């Protein structure tokens, strides 16, 4: 099946949000998505983009138009030990179109981009119960840093952030 990978444009924002929600549903955490199309538009296509997005689109057999069937949302971050890293934030192909090589193609595209922008690595998180994704990454030589080095992901939510921000200086 013929598909095309391209850089996301502002018009893709509704599809990006749709896929973000589909991925969150797959991860059984859909109620955590509070992002809106407006947020995605401002944050991705304003003066300072906070994320970049590549999307996969194709023409389904049943219709005339094009459908966005997969996406990868990423941004550049920094590791104080090795420098620039590409951080893969969300990566998802709609169930119907998995197994066609679209995911592999996106990975290849992103790793190529990482090399071109002088990133020494590509990083992301995966849930330990997501067996198929873990296998997908391990097959390609990824390291599980949580397992191998003991790194744990910690998060402060908005409430704790506000509390910390207003803490009295000692």
């Amino acid at each position, binding site marked *: 099946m013929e598909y095309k990978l391209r850089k996301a444009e502002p018009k893709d924002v509704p599809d990006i949000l749709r896929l973000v929600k589909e991925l969150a549903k797959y991860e059984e*955490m859909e109620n955590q998505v*509070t992002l809106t199309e407006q947020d995605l538009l401002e944050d991705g296509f304003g003066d300072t983009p906070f994320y970049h997005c590549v999307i996969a689109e194709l023409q389904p057999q049943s219709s005339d138009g094009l459908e966005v069937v997969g996406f990868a949302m990423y941004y*550049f*971050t*920094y590791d*104080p*030990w*090795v*420098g*620039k890293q590409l951080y893969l934030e969300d990566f998802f192909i709609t169930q119907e179109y998995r*197994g066609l*090589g679209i*995911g*592999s*193609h996106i*990975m*290849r595209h992103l*790793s*190529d981009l990482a*090399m071109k922008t002088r990133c*020494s*690595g*590509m*990083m*992301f*998180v*995966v*849930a*330990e119960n997501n067996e198929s994704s*873990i296998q997908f*990454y391990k097959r*390609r*030589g*990824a*390291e*599980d*840093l*949580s*397992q191998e*080095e*003991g*790194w*744990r*992901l*910690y*998060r*402060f*939510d*908005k*409430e*704790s*952030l*506000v*509390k*910390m*921000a*207003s*803490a009295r*200086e*000692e």
Partner: protein
Amino acid sequence: MDYKIRAARKEDCKDIARMIMELAVFEKMPDQVKISYKELERDGFCQNPFFECLIAEVSDAHRSKCGNGIGKSLMSKVAKIAAEKQCVRLQLSVLDWNSPARDFYAAKGAQDLTDSEGWHFIRFDGLSLDNLVKEAPQD
């Protein structure tokens, strides 16, 4: 103890590199540090910086020790910046055996998502990243 928290300047990169190494030694992974102050200067103080940095400096020749509230002040300043920029979350990684750090963050309301939701950090670098680039189309 008199100290000041401020945004890092290019001239601070040598000190920042020194402290990155001190932290890496503490984390028992000093051989993983591959960059020097030069990369920090290039990547943090260019047109579109890849990182921002806050530093704490003491006015005299006092050696900084833990327990003076400097860590809390730094976190507070980071949180202020996050709130100003309308961030909804602050995420970080910490080593499983680093109890003082884990306790410090937990006391301030952080959640261990590796524990509660099973998230693992994954990385492709070096050879595995090269291989991904060359990978054949078939899965």
